[in-house]
């Protein structure tokens, strides 16, 4: 081995040493949070917190709840705070990964609307603080529905009207679509009783002629371009559709709607619990929660934030969900127990 290759090796070693030093261990005076990226926790809010407290915030972006679980369980002492979806809170709680939150360190906790507390994933609200809420609902162009000769849509059952042939768009997920059918039959989400599932299967197949498109990412586009007159979608998509065309109005089906809640939780081995409590208390301040809600366009569980919300947000029932709508929602619980069966039925349905 001559000099040149030795130099090359040393250079490579130095590069790695520098890289290693750059990614050093967590120090006090900083916290690390892990959640969805983009502006799910707005950078502007983080900067405000850093300026006020001098605590540096690191933001680990991940693409799924399952990734958060693997990363947290491999390195529980690397992360202070996590925002994950309701069902993952349940899993992490049962795996003993989460810290019981000390409410006395967070005076602003009292701002949280009790309608969002004590849910299945955290029955005593010990581990989780709700952060971003969304539901699924119907977005309807009632003008066009009327023109087609159908009666106005107020329930899921109305989607079965023969006048709506090839005029309905739905998100493309078996559990959601089976959910519509089960609710329209008066049953609960993720029903396992074979008789009820068989009944739902028949009713589902009857819906097929009315579906013009299965679309998960931009179902609102089908209503904007007039391809569909009614759609079942997530609230943030419905908000976009309504903003693009005010004739598209939300319908909260009387049978009930699914709800999704992303919640803050703290790692049991969090390196900087004190800093984490400071951060949680900060984002639960009414004016901060209002700013976050306006940037992310999710529903905020912060009741005290309402007066600080911009007018267009406050007057939008899809964003500022009325309590009676929230009370008529339920979670998809036990997806793992029904998924195989539902996927099977759903595939058959789509192939018809």
């Amino acid at each position: 081995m001559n000099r040149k290759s030795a130099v090359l090796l040393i250079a490579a070693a130095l590069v790695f040493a520098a890289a290693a030093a750059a990614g050093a261990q967590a120090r006090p005076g900083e916290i690390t949070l892990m959640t969805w990226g983009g502006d799910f926790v707005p950078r502007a809010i983080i900067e405000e917190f850093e300026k006020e407290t001098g605590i540096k915030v690191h933001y680990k972006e991940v693409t799924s709840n399952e990734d958060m679980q693997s990363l947290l369980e491999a390195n529980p002492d690397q992360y202070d705070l996590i925002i994950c979806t309701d069902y993952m809170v349940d899993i992490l709680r049962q795996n003993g990964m989460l810290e019981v939150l000390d409410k006395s360190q967070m005076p602003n906790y009292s701002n949280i609307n009790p309608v969002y507390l004590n849910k299945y994933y955290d029955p005593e609200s010990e581990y989780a603080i709700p952060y971003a809420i969304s539901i699924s609902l119907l977005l309807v162009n009632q003008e066009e529905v009327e023109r087609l000769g159908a009666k106005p849509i107020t329930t899921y059952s109305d989607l079965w009207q023969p006048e709506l042939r090839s005029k309905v768009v739905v998100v493309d997920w078996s559990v959601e679509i089976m959910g519509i059918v089960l609710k329209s039959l008066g049953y609960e989400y993720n029903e396992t009783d074979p008789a009820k599932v068989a009944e739902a299967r028949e009713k589902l197949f009857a819906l097929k002629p009315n579906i013009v498109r299965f679309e998960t990412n931009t179902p609102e586009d089908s209503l904007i371009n007039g391809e569909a007159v009614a759609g079942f979608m997530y609230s943030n998509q419905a908000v976009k559709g309504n903003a693009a065309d005010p004739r598209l109005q939300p319908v909260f089906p009387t049978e009930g709607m699914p709800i999704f809640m992303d919640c803050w939780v703290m790692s049991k081995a969090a390196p900087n619990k004190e800093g984490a409590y400071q951060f949680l208390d900060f984002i639960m301040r009414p004016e901060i929660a209002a700013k976050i809600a306006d940037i992310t366009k999710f529903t905020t569980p912060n009741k005290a934030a309402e007066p600080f919300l911009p007018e267009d947000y406050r007057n939008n029932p899809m964003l500022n969900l009325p309590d009676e709508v929230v009370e008529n929602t339920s979670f998809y619980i036990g997806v793992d127990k029904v998924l195989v069966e539902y996927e099977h039925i759903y595939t058959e349905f789509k192939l018809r």
Partner: protein
Amino acid sequence: MKAKTRGFGTVYLSLFFVFLYLPVLSVVLYSFNASRSTAQWTGWTLDWYRQLFSDRAIVEAFRVSIVVALLTALLSAVLGTFAAVISLWVTSRMKTAIQGMMILPLIVPEVALGVSLLFFFNAMRLPFGVLTLVLSHSLFCVPYVYIMVRLRLQEIDRSILESALDLGASTWQMVRTIILPLVAPSIVTAALLCLAMSLDDVIISTYMSGPRSTTLPVHVFSMMRVGVTPKVNALCTLILIGTFFIIGLSQLITNKRRFAK
């Protein structure tokens, strides 16, 4: 008959490329759309590009991605080339074994690789960040360098190497003055491929990036929950241009080699 076949071939290939590139072109088009929705075209704008460059998180993620890709290309090129050169002097049974083991990281599902690397680096107490990203990306990049360099080495006449040794050259002299210059174009092409693959990776990067270093693809995918803005279309357009540039460069190098021969 011949003309007929050729006509069919042209039509087939044209359709093939239209099918392949039309969706890609629509991303480019929508990156200039003033509306947030892809259902409406409300006019031309450069706003999304402006927003893209003022987004600090994206710029930072892009910087990490580029650093990781460059280091990965360098490390993989060195490791892969040496492995290929050394494999010239092993028994044929050993060669088959090496080949098989080289391809293994490409067959193992990325999630499995990501999770096992997570546990491994954890046990080694390596801090997660640029270092772990480069090491893990090199894991799936080295095989490509090995395969490409190995193919080129097979074209070299063994007698040239033997005569060099007979005439008193040391092994290292022979490698440096004969083998490396002959395989250099393959190394560069392979390194550019590594660059592109490292820039693309999402799954392994999710596990390997530390709490404070996110790569660009991970950043983009993690935005799904909040909703993807046309900013991402603008970003894709720029990445496309970058990728075309890299591929063009590697083609140019390959062609040069052909002509030189």
